[in-house]
């Protein structure tokens, strides 16, 4: 696993100068977007894959991050660091509130109640006319002091954040906390009988995932320079879920692979035909029927 990883990293590091030399800036933007989505999908994978919590409302934190960035910029806060801190903090807080209530339910009811809360957030946000309502809100790029946030800087920033977050998740999953989280997914009543405060573990994972999704949302706002209500919509939650399932639920690279695969497939098919969604649908269906463990499962043997 080390070698391919290093190669991909090298490629990603070297891409922007190559792109600008060859006039491929568009693809640099595409990669930026994929990295941001990969971060969001990986955060969802933490709770969905490792925690077994099927949250159908992950867009709430993703969108909240983007909106926080846009609203703070509009209100005159121009420091990127402050914006990041506030956005991550707010997303975590929202996840704490929502998680605290939703984690009382299980199964399908959990899916639906997380969806319900995300929908409430959606409608609340679009009701604020001063923040753009259904139109969304423009979000200029903030200042980071050390560097100017050009497209290329954003690319490297996203890469750094994604790499950092993945490293953090890797440590987390293999540490005591991660092991217990997975044990709870495997058998909740057993974990409880062993003396683990299940609720607290789940809630903490939920909050962490919310915070990371919020960070991804901020980056998304920097990328599109715009906070769209669609980032909060249930379709966005579904889209993130698709990425995780496609990539591999509970597989470490599941979120990244899923985000990359889905984005690339969409991009390629969009160029080929206006009926590209048909292609996406057929591919997704084929994955479910023939590769039940997702893409990451394709080159990993049974444990």
């Amino acid at each position, binding site marked *: 696993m080390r070698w391919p990883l290093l190669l991909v990293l090298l490629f990603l590091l070297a891409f922007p100068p190559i792109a600008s030399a060859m006039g491929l800036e568009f693809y640099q933007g595409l990669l930026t977007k994929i990295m941001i989505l990969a971060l969001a999908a990986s955060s969802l994978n933490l709770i969905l894959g490792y925690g077994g919590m099927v949250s159908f409302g992950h867009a709430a934190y993703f969108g909240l991050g983007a909106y926080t960035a846009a609203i703070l910029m509009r209100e005159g806060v121009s420091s990127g660091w402050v914006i990041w801190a506030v956005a991550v903090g707010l997303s975590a807080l929202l996840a704490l509130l929502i998680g605290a209530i939703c984690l009382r339910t299980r199964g399908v009811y959990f899916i639906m109640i997380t969806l319900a809360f995300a929908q409430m957030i959606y409608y609340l946000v679009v009701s604020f006319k001063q923040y753009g309502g259904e139109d969304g809100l423009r979000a200029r790029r903030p200042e980071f002091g050390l560097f100017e946030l050009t497209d290329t800087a954003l690319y490297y920033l996203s890469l750094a954040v994604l790499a950092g977050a993945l490293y953090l998740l890797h*440590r*987390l999953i*293999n*540490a*005591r*906390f*991660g*092991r*217990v989280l997975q*044990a709870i997914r*495997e*058998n909740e*009543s*057993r*974990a*409880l*009988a*062993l*003396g*683990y*405060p*299940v609720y607290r*573990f789940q809630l*903490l994972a939920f909050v962490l995932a919310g915070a990371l999704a919020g960070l991804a949302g901020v980056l998304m706002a920097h990328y599109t320079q715009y906070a769209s209500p669609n980032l909060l919509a249930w379709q966005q939650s579904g889209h993130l879920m698709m990425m995780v399932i496609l990539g591999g639920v509970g597989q470490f690279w599941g979120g990244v692979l899923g985000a990359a695969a889905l984005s690339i497939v969409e991009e390629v098919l969009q160029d080929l035909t206006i009926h590209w969604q048909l292609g996406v649908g057929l591919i997704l269906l084929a994955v479910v029927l023939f590769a039940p463990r997702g893409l990451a499962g394709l080159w990993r043997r049974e*444990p």
Partner: protein
Amino acid sequence: MTLLETHQLSKRFGGLLAVNGCNLAVKTGEIHALIGPNGAGKTTLLNLITGVLAPNKGQVRFEGQDITHLPAHARVHRGLARTFQITNLFRNYTVRVNLELAVQARRGSSFRFWQPVFKEKALTEEAFRVAERVGLGGRFEVVAGQLSHGEQRALEVALALASRPKLLLLDEPMAGMGPEESARMVELIESLRQEFTILLVEHDMDAVFRLAQRISVLVYGQVIATGTPEEIRANPEVHKAYLGDEGGVA
């Protein structure tokens, strides 16, 4: 000295009173068996004691302290550990990981996010000791779901042991076992007598009368008698309510 005590404990499921004013006392150091016909409320009582269910009425006291409203996980840390009637393991994990998880729950905080858990040799060592104790030392790296039924039951007990409880609650440990496996389980429980207080719920009367110092009989959610095996054998109430009038205990 009384280790565990329930006082007028009641649990209602809709119209059904599963446990009805139940008074039970387990003394430190004994093996206390809880018997009763099917549907008498034994498992419900166990769930009330371990905190999986909340009672409608009554109290649970452990080491003299009221733990009625303590969450389930906190009771484990007080020293209450249980096994399940239906085998309840991390089936996709090896014996090693099952036991490490059990040990980890007791040793230090699990809210640690950075150090890889596989580097904690102490966990593995203790897990292995527990495995050897129940005779699973040679099956340490086998996935739990692939163990034989008897081995799974042993692992079930081992998981409870790993938390070094003061009171071990065994919910029908011999359920579904053949005579050979049962004998091995009896031996195992016998070997635990020195270290642990045990509350044993069991249908296998041979085993109960061999192991228990005292026996409580639960009928319709109430303890109708408590005493030594001899007293219970002789108790006409028990004969009437539980054994029918057809004869003595086998």
